[in-house]
């Protein structure tokens, strides 16, 4: 704690009691079993920083190669690997995880919670990120890195033109890392919606939480299309299923659709949290509430939606009808409106306040200048004729960096300097910070402003060298000098970060005069954040009650202490913030590490084409995740039924609608996005692919599909009835009923397997059969999981871990059954029934 904070004896006693329950374990075990959001958030950011530096070194290699014409500093093969890895590392291993880490660290502190709602999932996400990142980056050290560009366009990335392992590293490594992003997306969504401080209604939520909520939901919906694309491309490369090969009935353009369905929202997934930092900092340094809170909320939501309607502007040159191009061109211009709303809100807040130009505000100012320029070139690129002219030139590279570096890196550094005292208790150096800023700002503009000209003069991207006669020499040299100047700026910032812990001035409490709850905490915060949970009645709790921090530390608010030994949060209503239940969280665990290690084995085995080992790893991960789910509800290590439990509000496992149900719901949203992408792929290939071969008769047996669907329908309806009965307190025969429901799930899967085996598919011969196989595998996976989970529920009911007093879990499993029911009939109709009805065969 900083020296300015002098805790009272009562606060110290409370701290010891809370620390005993919430504290991180020490030693090696502690290193691997921590689930605390503060520790893991910082780990995400530290790992992201390492990858940023590695990606930065790659950028410097690129600028060295391009500094002069006709250079042989790098061979074309290595240059292609370096540029591909630079983009990949910066987008997937730095930008997203870094912002996730920031959100994981800050969100509970800002909304008045002690942790995120799924601590083990936070740890699992971190390990997946770390292992995936290491595997992906190892490819560069092995000189077999991906080299088809960070968007991996087919057919360049397909087996024919990229026969090495590079594309496989990308596809498997990125999918692994995306598990981490999805984990964070799901738990951040649920945490923000269901664990806010009492009284913190939606309209009182900090704007940063609105931004992170939008980001998290966009990850949940936006990442699955790329996961599907990666799965399909890996299946094509490893097993020969021709999804993207015209001769087999596939289409390489399908990859572009799936990639950019993810890729364009990705830009906004990166921008929104950064804009959240700006919307948090500007009111603090202007000394007044933000102008137009509601306008900002509306702008966030508009960005979240409209950004999914722009993906085709990356594909204006592939031969799409003019009218369709016009739709996407207009939508691309439309997305500038919510961004403009935010810019005007920020300017108005500064105009009406009394701005202090502290170090964080310097980075915010840099952001405003650079991002507005990047936004304007974005509107230029939305115009189809201009887009055609500069397509695949350095103009696009310059625009991309203006948007991403301006829109993410500058606000990130504003946020880092702003929240640094919270993390370490010490202030950053103004002098070093300002030097770092100006070197970075000037270096950046020198590099990328000039690059617009290089692009307009026609220099294409991803060429490893150029002829002096092209007239690009001077511009490239200036860009390279600027690049190194920017690198020097980053180095100065790093020096400040490293030195401030030792030499930085001790931070006074709430050093910037902020309004949000995280500044009511100790610096650095304790493992449990809040010794007692405050009630929030306004948008600016610390401006309204400056003594809140002391009151919290003395335990004067809700649920102080942890004498019961449970890690407890308050569960609140999503809209009003009214308290509904006490959420009990699991403690430290090695299971997330083990499960992620098993997935790493899967990833490496697939790269090495050791399929039996990959299957073993997958089974291991499945078993570990189920074991993880076992320590829940009334389990003796979770919250066993007893006499010391609260009644009003009750523990969440004693209710029918705890956060696990919401987590399952949001996870199924991601699953639904994957499913819809698959459905899109099916209809896209059917209607667009020139060599698509629809058989005259569907190979799938209709009677078997109907019987399988009937078993699933019966099981789902029965499960729903039992869940409803449980809510009414009726538990007689529950274990038996759940066993029978699991058996129906097993029958559903068995009949589907029979339909698959009887179909005689030739998935390596036609894209039709390959897509059908993927669809059936999807249904089988979900059906199998639904049956297993129902069987586990039956077992738990038999052990007394599920029942009238513990009615929570069957409702969570019922959501999966309901989902499977929906996707089963939709897929059966799309893949088996519709071709019969339309007579689509030859």
């Amino acid at each position, binding site marked *: 704690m900083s020296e300015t904070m002098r805790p009272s004896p009562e606060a110290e006693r409370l701290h010891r009691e809370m620390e005993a329950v919430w504290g991180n374990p020490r030693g090696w075990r502690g290193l691997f079993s921590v689930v605390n959001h503060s520790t893991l958030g910082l780990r995400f950011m530290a790992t992201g920083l390492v990858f940023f530096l590695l990606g930065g070194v790659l950028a410097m290699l690129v600028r060295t190669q391009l500094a002069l014409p006709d250079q042989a500093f790098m061979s074309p093969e290595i240059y292609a690997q370096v540029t591909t890895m630079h983009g990949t590392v910066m987008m997937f291993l730095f930008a997203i995880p870094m912002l996730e880490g920031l959100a994981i660290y800050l969100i509970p502190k800002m909304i008045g919670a002690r942790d995120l709602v799924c601590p083990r999932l936070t740890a699992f996400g971190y390990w997946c990120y770390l292992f995936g990142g290491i595997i992906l980056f190892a490819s560069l050290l092995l000189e077999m890195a991906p080299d088809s560009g960070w968007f991996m366009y087919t057919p360049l990335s397909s087996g024919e033109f990229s026969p090495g392992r590079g594309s496989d590293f990308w596809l498997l490594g990125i999918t692994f890392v995306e598990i981490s992003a999805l984990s964070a997306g799901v738990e951040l969504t649920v945490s923000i919606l269901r664990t806010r401080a009492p009284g913190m*209604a*939606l*309209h009182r939520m900090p704007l940063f939480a609105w931004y992170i909520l939008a980001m998290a939901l966009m990850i949940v919906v936006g990442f699955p299309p790329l996961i599907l694309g990666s799965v399909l491309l890996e299946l094509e490369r490893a097993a020969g299923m021709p999804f993207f090969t015209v001769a087999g009935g596939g289409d390489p353009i399908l990859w572009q659709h799936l990639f950019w369905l993810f890729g364009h929202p990705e830009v906004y997934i990166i921008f929104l949290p950064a804009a959240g930092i700006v919307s948090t900092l500007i009111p603090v340094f202007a000394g007044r509430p933000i102008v137009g809170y*509601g*306008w900002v*909320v*509306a702008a966030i*939501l*508009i960005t*979240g*939606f*409209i950004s*999914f*309607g722009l993906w*085709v502007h990356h594909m204006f040159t592939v031969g799409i*009808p*003019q*009218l*369709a191009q*016009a*739709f*996407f061109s*207009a*939508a691309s*211009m*439309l997305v500038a*409106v919510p961004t403009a709303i935010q810019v005007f809100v920020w300017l108005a807040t500064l105009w009406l306040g009394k701005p202090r130009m502290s170090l964080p505000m310097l980075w915010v100012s840099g952001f405003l200048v650079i991002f507005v320029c990047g936004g304007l070139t974005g509107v230029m690129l939305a115009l189809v004729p201009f887009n055609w002219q500069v397509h695949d030139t350095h103009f696009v590279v310059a625009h991309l960096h203006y948007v991403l570096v301006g829109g993410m890196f500058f606000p990130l550094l504003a946020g880092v300097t702003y929240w640094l005292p919270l993390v370490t208790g010490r202030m950053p150096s103004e002098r070093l910070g300002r030097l770092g800023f100006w070197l970075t700002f000037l270096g950046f503009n020198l590099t990328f402003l000039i690059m617009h000209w290089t692009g307009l003069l026609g220099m294409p991207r991803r060429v490893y060298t150029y002829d002096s006669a092209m007239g690009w020499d001077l511009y490239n040299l200036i860009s390279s000098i600027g690049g190194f100047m920017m690198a020097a700026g980053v180095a100065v910032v790093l020096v400040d970060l490293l030195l401030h812990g030792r030499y930085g001035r001790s931070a006074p409490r709430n050093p910037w005069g902020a309004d949000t709850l995280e500044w009511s905490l100790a610096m650095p915060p304790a493992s449990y954040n809040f010794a007692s949970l405050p009630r929030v009645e306004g948008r600016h709790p610390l401006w309204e009650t400056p003594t809140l921090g002391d009151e919290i530390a003395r335990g004067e608010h809700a649920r102080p202490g942890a004498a019961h030994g449970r890690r407890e949060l308050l569960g609140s209503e*999503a*809209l*009003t913030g009214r308290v509904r239940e006490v959420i009990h969280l699991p403690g430290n665990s090695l299971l997330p590490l083990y499960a992620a290690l098993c997935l790493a084995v899967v990833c490496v085995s697939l790269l090495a084409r050791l399929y039996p080992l990959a299957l073993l790893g997958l089974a291991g991960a499945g078993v570990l995740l189920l074991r993880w789910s076992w320590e829940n509800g009334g389990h003796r290590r979770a919250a066993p039924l007893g006499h010391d439990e609260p009644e009003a509000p009750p523990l969440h496992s004693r209710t029918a609608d705890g956060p696990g149900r919401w987590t399952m719901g949001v996870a199924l949203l991601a699953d639904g996005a994957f499913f819809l992408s698959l459905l899109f792929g099916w209809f896209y290939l059917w*209607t*667009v692919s020139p060599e698509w071969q629809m058989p005259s008769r569907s190979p799938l047996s209709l009677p078997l599909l109907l019987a399988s669907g009937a078993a699933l329908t019966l099981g789902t309806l029965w499960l729903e009835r039992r869940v409803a009965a449980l809510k009414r307190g009726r538990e007689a025969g529950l274990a038996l009923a759940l066993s029978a429901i699991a058996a129906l799930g097993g029958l559903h899967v068995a009949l589907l397997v029979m339909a698959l085996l009887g179909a005689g598919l030739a998935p390596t011969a036609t894209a039709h059969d390959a897509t059908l196989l993927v669809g059936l595998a999807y249904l089988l996976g979900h059906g199998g999981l639904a049956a297993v989970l129902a069987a586990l529920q039956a077992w738990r009911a038999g052990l007394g871990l599920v029942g009238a007093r513990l009615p929570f879990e069957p409702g969570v499993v019922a959501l999966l059954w309901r989902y499977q029911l929906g996707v089963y009939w939709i897929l059966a109709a799309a893949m088996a029934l519709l071709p019969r009805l339309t007579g689509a065969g030859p």
Partner: protein
Amino acid sequence: MTVLRRWWAPSHPAQLLLGLTLWSLWFVVLYGGLSVACALAPPRPGQGAFTAINGGLALLTLATLALLGWLAWRGLRAGGVSVGGSRFIALTGAGLHLFSAAGVAFVGLPIVTLPPCL
């Protein structure tokens, strides 16, 4: 039905998503419908923008505009008589419906000028 009725109320948080969801659905049907129609029955190139495809898309656009306009008006009216969180949701929701309507009008404008499948 009770759940649906609750979600339909102008002060329910679902209203923050409804307008933009309608915009998204309209956009998907617009682009998907155009692609499928051009794959199945492309009109003669000389017809310009006066085709059945443009007509169908224009009708869809007008219907979506009308629905979004009505939802915005409903939200504005509800926001005028409510307070606190309900007022915030109703008014922000109304603004989002209005923006979605403007988005439908702006993105749909090329339907009256461009041929569908060229």
